[in-house]
C-alpha cells in the first residue's frame, strides 16, 4: 500500500464507554501519528478515561452545546455523537471505529492496519459502473478482467470505505439472538465497489469517508423511538448509509466494501434488545421502495443540495408513514444548516 499523508486524516471515535484505555491502547500502533477526535456521548455521565500518548481532542456535551446550541445537541446523542466529530473536523478523510472494536488479525496472524487500508481504499478509484469479477482492480496482483470496458477503467472518486467485522458481525438482534454462538471467522480478502443503484446496509461500526467529497451526506438523522446504547437498538447508520449511497450514485462517486476487518467484541445482549419493539425493521421496509424509486433532480449538483432534496422527498413520501421519518427529514435539514455554519468560516 502507498504511503499515507497522516495530516489528511482525522480518526473520529464516538465514546459510548467512559474508559477508552483498552480500546485506544490496542489501536496505538495504527493510530499513532494521527490526530484523534473523541466525542463523548452527551448522555454519558462519567468522565472519560483516555490514556497518554495520543494526539487527541476530546469533545463533550458542553462543547457540543457551544457549537450547535443546546437545543440541537440531542442530534448527537448515543452513537450519533461521532457525527459531531465529522462536523468540526478540518481534514480530508475521516476514519471512524466503534469503541468496542480492536484490531483484527489477518489469516497470516498479522494485525490489520484498518486505518491504512481505509485510506488506501479512499485514495484509489471506485468502479461502480461495471462489476469486476476479480474485485478491486487497482490492488497488487489484480486487474480488470477480459470484457471490462476500457472507457470505464479509470474509475470514479471513492466517497466511502465500508469495513467489516470478525468475531461479532453486525447482525441484527433477531439474527444474533437466534444464533447466539455464531461468530464471523471468515476473512474475505477483497475490497470491491458496490455497484451503481445497488442498495446496501452501511454499518457505522467500521467506516471511513472522504469528508471533502461527501461530508454533508453523512447525516445523523434517523432515530428509533427506543434507540439504545447498543448497535442492535439503532438504525442511524443504516439510514445514513442509504442516503450516502444514493447521493454518491447521483454525483458519480463510488462506495467500497470489504477490507479492512476489525475485531468486534461482546457488548449487550441480543435477546435483551429483542424485548424492545423492533421498529427498525418496519422503517427499513418502508425505506427500501422509497430509495429504489427516488430520483434526485439533475440540478442538485452539490452534496448539501442533494441532502436537502432528499430530506424534502423523505418528508413528502415517507412523512405520513411514520413520525420517525419526518423527524429524520427535519434533522437532515438542520444538519446542513449546522454544516454550513460551522464550515463556512473556513
Amino acid at each position: 500500500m502507498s504511503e499515507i499523508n497522516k495530516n489528511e486524516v482525522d480518526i473520529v471515535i464516538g465514546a459510548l464507554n467512559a474508559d477508552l484505555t483498552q480500546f485506544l491502547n490496542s489501536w496505538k500502533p495504527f493510530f499513532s501519528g494521527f490526530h484523534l477526535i473523541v466525542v463523548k456521548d452527551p448522555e454519558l455521565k462519567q468522565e472519560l478515561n483516555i490514556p497518554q500518548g495520543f494526539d487527541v481532542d476530546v469533545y463533550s456535551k458542553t462543547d457540543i452545546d457551544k457549537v450547535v446550541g443546546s437545543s440541537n445537541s440531542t442530534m448527537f446523542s448515543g452513537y450519533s455523537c461521532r457525527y459531531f466529530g465529522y462536523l468540526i473536523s478540518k481534514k480530508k478523510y475521516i476514519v471512524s471505529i466503534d469503541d468496542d472494536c480492536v484490531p483484527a488479525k489477518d489469516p497470516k496472524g498479522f494485525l490489520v492496519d484498518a486505518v491504512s487500508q481505509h485510506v488506501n481504499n479512499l485514495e484509489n478509484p471506485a468502479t461502480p459502473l461495471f462489476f469486476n469479477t476479480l474485485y478491486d482492480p487497482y490492488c497488487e496482483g489484480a486487474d480488470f478482467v477480459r470484457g471490462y470496458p476500457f472507457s470505464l477503467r479509470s474509475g470514479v472518486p471513492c466517497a466511502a470505505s465500508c469495513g467489516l467485522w470478525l468475531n461479532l458481525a453486525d447482525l441484527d438482534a433477531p439474527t444474533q439472538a437466534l444464533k447466539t454462538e455464531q461468530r464471523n471467522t471468515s476473512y474475505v480478502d477483497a475490497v470491491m465497489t458496490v455497484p451503481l443503484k445497488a442498495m446496501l446496509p452501511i454499518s457505522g461500526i467500521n467506516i471511513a469517508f472522504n469528508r471533502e467529497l461527501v461530508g454533508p451526506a453523512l447525516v445523523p438523522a434517523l432515530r428509533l423511538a427506543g434507540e439504545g446504547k447498543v448497535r442492535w437498538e439503532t438504525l442511524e447508520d443504516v439510514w445514513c448509509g442509504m442516503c450516502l449511497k444514493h447521493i454518491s450514485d447521483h454525483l458519480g462517486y463510488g462506495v467500497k466494501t470489504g477490507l479492512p476487518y476489525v475485531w468486534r467484541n461482546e457488548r449487550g445482549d441480543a435477546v435483551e434488545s429483542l424485548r424492545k419493539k423492533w421498529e427498525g425493521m418496519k422503517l427499513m421496509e418502508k425505506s427500501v421502495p422509497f430509495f429504489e424509486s427516488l430520483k434526485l433532480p439533475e440540478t442538485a449538483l452539490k452534496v448539501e443540495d442533494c441532502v436537502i432534496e432528499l430530506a424534502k422527498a423523505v418528508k413528502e413520501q415517507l412523512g405520513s408513514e411514520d413520525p420517525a421519518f419526518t423527524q429524520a427529514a427535519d434533522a437532515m435539514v438542520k444538519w446542513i444548516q449546522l454544516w454550513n455554519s460551522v464550515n463556512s468560516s473556513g
Partner: protein
Amino acid sequence: MVEPANTVGVPMNPTPLLKDELDIVIPTIRNLDFLEMWRPFLQPYHLIIVQDGDPSKTIAVPEGFDYELYNRNDINRILGPKASCISFKDSACRCFGYMVSKKKYIFTIDDDCFVAKDPSGKAVNALEQHIKNLLCPSSPFFFNTLYDPYREGADFVRGYPFSLREGVSTAVSHGLWLNIPDYDAPTQLVKPKERNTRYVDAVLTIPKGTLFPMCGMNLAFDRELIGPAMYFGLMGDGQPIGRYDDMWAGWCVKVICDHLGLGVKTGLPYIYHSKASNPFVNLKKEYKGIFWQEDIIPFFQSAKLSKEAVTVQQCYIELSKMVKEKLSPIDPYFDKLADAMVTWIEAWDELNPATKA
C-alpha cells in the same frame, strides 16, 4: 506462487449431488487429459464433449467417464441449416452442448483448468460448490455486506430488509481462477507474469441492474431457468471477432435474469487455470471487440424488455430484435448475430420441445 491440487487419493463422494440432473459440457480441440485430475469430483457425472476443429481427429477420453461426443459433422447433421448459429474453431461451440443436454443443470469447464487448492491446501471440488451456489437463493435486490447470507457461518447483516431475505432462484454460478487470470490481450501483454494468487473466500450475488464480464471457463447454470439465453454467439472461423462469446452470453443472461427476477452469483469456486493463451493471437481476435464493447455495454445497460416477455425465449427474441435495430449500425456483424440469435432459439425449441413457452 500458486499450484494446482494433487488429487491422487482424494476419495470420491459416495452420494454425489445432482448426479443424474447435471451434465458437464467440455469444448475441446486437443485432448481431455485434464479430466484425470478431476476424476474424484467429476467421474460420477455425464459428460457432453463438443469437439471443435477437425472432425476426423479422435479425442481420447480417459477411462471410466460416461460421455457423449459431438464433432462438427454431428452438429451439422443434428441441426441441419440451423448449424450456422454454432461457431466453428472457437470454444463458443460449447453452447451446442447446452442445447442437446436433457438435464436441469450444466457445468462447463475448459480443458486447461485443473483442480485448485484452498488456503488450507485442500483440493477444491468446484462442481460441488457450483451446485451449492445454484441450490441456494440469490439476493440481487439488496447487497449483503457479508456476501452470501446462506453460507455456513454467514447471515444477513443489520439493516437488511426482512422482506428480501427469502431471495430469488439462482440461475448462474460464475466461478473464478487462480494462477492465469482471465485478462484481455492488452493486459496480458503489459503484465505477462501476473498470476492470481488471491483466494477470496466469498460467493456473492451480482446486484440487479449491474452487468459483469461472464467467463465461460468455470461456469454453471440452471438450464431450465436460463438455458436458452446461454448462446455463445458467432465467433472464430469466418467471423470478425473472437473471445467475446462468453461475454456476449453473460450480458444477455444478466439482462434477462434481471428482467425475470433470477439471480447470478460470482466468486467461489476457484479452479486452477494452467494455460496462458498467446496474447498476440488474442489481440487479433479481441481487437474489434474492444472497440465494439464501448457501444455494446451502453446498449445492454439500457435494454428494457417488455412486460409481455415472460419466458427466456421471448426475452431472447426481443433482445435479438433490439440488437438488430441498435447494434447493426456499428457493423453488419451484429445483423448476422441477431439472426443467429433467432436461429439459436429455433434450434433450442426444436431440440427441447418440452421447455417451449
